[in-house]
């Protein structure tokens, strides 16, 4: 085995060097624009990946720059040296303001502590996949997504999958909870904001959606059933920030899309979802929910053929 590996190493090394070179050129071109356009009370620094942040939950982080990771082109630190925002010109990830920590603690204790524990480190439970998970080190984007999408506080904590609801807590309260939980074990990803969605490349977004998202959420974004009572939810009514949060954090059974999707690609996907998926053109006037050929065929059979049968009865009846 080792000899086969060694034999393949020479051409592979050439290709590898070429890949690294192309990547570094790509990353270098984006750096200047984003740092100059960023102004802040804190200091602006570049490429300080090594000393950026302690990462307690390294399993959920990746090393590729500009992929929802702290080692991005743009990094903003506050006066005490804490990373408060990072990203590039496509997506800005912002830490929840530390001024909200006291409010977040209070809201957490009222709404979340009974299941996730007063230290947010989770409670083991029988029967529920994932139990009541440890929230520490997941990053603010995860907390914000679950609360802002109305899944938490959970209506039925024992259900297989928390479903989307109108949010029970306000936007400020959600960000406050994220601020407090993150203060226990600081981690990324921060809460993403997708910049200038209207000018993103939606054709690229469509290709990436078809490759990465459509398998479960279907090509029309209507969602579908999955294994063991779980389902992929509809994407028809989800704000841009929550789409980005879900892609970067992988809520529930959804995979995390991190290193393999750059922030530029993330922005293109969000543009496609919030544009074409949520506002389909439906040239026929009635989209039938985009449920696909089986559902449309059923409607055609039940309504169309049923109606034709009734008309045939009327025509043939001579009394």
């Amino acid at each position, binding site marked *: *085995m080792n000899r*086969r*590996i060694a*034999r*393949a*190493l020479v051409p*592979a090394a050439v*290709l*590898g060097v070429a*890949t690294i070179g192309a*990547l570094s050129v790509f990353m270098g071109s984006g750096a200047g624009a984003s740092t100059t356009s960023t102004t802040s009370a804190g200091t602006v620094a570049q490429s300080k990946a090594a000393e950026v942040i302690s990462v307690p939950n*390294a*399993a*959920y*982080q*990746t*090393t*590729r720059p500009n*992929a929802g990771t702290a080692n991005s082109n743009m990094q903003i630190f506050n006066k005490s040296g804490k990373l408060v925002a990072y990203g590039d010109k496509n997506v800005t990830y912002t830490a929840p303001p530390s001024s909200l920590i006291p409010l977040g603690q209070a809201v957490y204790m009222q709404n979340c502590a009974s299941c996730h524990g007063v230290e947010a480190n989770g409670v083991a439970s029988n029967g529920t*996949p*994932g139990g009541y998970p440890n929230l520490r080190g997941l990053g603010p984007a995860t907390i914000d997504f679950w609360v802002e999408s109305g899944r938490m506080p959970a209506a039925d904590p024992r259900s297989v999958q928390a479903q989307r609801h109108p949010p029970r807590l306000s936007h400020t309260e959600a960000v406050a909870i994220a601020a407090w939980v993150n203060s226990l074990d600081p981690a990324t990803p921060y809460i993403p904001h997708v910049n200038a969605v209207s000018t993103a490349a939606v054709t690229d977004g469509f*290709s990436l959606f078809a*490759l*990465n998202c459509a*398998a*479960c959420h279907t090509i029309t974004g209507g969602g*579908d059933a*999955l*294994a*063991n009572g*779980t389902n*992929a939810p509809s994407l028809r009514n989800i704000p841009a920030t929550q789409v980005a949060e879900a892609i970067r954090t*992988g809520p*529930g*059974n*959804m*995979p*995390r*899309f*991190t*290193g*393999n999707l750059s922030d530029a690609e993330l922005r293109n996907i969000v543009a496609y979802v919030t544009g074409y998926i949520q506002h389909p053109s439906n*040239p*026929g*006037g*009635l989209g039938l929910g985009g449920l696909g050929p089986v559902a449309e065929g059923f409607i055609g059979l039940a309504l169309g053929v049923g109606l034709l049968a009734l008309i045939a009865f*009327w*025509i043939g009846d*001579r*009394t």
Partner: protein
Amino acid sequence: MSAEQHTPVSITSVSIDDPHMQPLARNPRRMEQTIATAMFFGLLSFVLFGVAYWMNWAPWSLGVTLGLGMVLLGFGVTAWGKYLMPKGPFVEERHEVASTEEQRDSFAAAVIQRNLGILGRRKVLGGLAGAGLGVFGIVAAFPLIRSLGPLPKNSLKTTDWKAGSYLVDSTGRAVKVGDVAVGGIVTVFPMGFEDTDNGQAVDQTVLIRLATADVVTLAGRESWGPSGYVAYSKVCPHLGCPVGLYEQQLEVLVCPCHQSMFTVSNGGYPTFGPAPRPLPQLPLYVDGRGYIRSQGGYNQPVGAGFWERS
């Protein structure tokens, strides 16, 4: 209505004042008004269709006006025939189809006694015609057989994955060990084949990260899952659909076509659905510079079953 009126009468002999010639409608005048109203609005819908077309209104308005026009006009014509025309029922006799006995006998005599005798005089010509048709039948089969395509040879059993192949995503970027978070999935191809038909059909592979430490999915595959990465063929062993639905908490891959489920942490073993075999697993390793590469090809042919395999 009496039974006599339901008996069919001959359409050639019925008189104009026969009950069969009366319309079905009890009040023909009101029925005519109803039909005229429907037809008028149908006509109006067609006019509106023309207006909608020239004014470039939304496509659904074209469908609604055209559909409504046809329904109303169709109702008018049908109701006219049903309620205002003579209600019948009528019959119309037709003549005998078969020839007479004499005609059939004389035709058979002419064919058998005269024509076969004439044909039998030219045995050479008859033999040549038969042989020509036979040869034609044989050579005509050549292009038919050839159009089945080349023999598959070994292509059903091999892919483009070789020892040392880099795993690249659909854009050609090679995947490094730190790129994918735990719970992440990437569709990968052997480097150089991400844009080829064979690459997208046969080589497509899902790369999943289950953990940060090495993962052993089955005994004998101890070195196949470095740094928590496992790779399986994306081609379902049932009928070849792309097995791209990954549930990261259940660690289950689902096939969208027939809901086969494969356990990722257990060698791609099928736990539900019609899939007859586990997903083929691709052995991986991480090279010195952190790139994920394949130790070699798949452990078994990818995709659906074929002859010579179950």
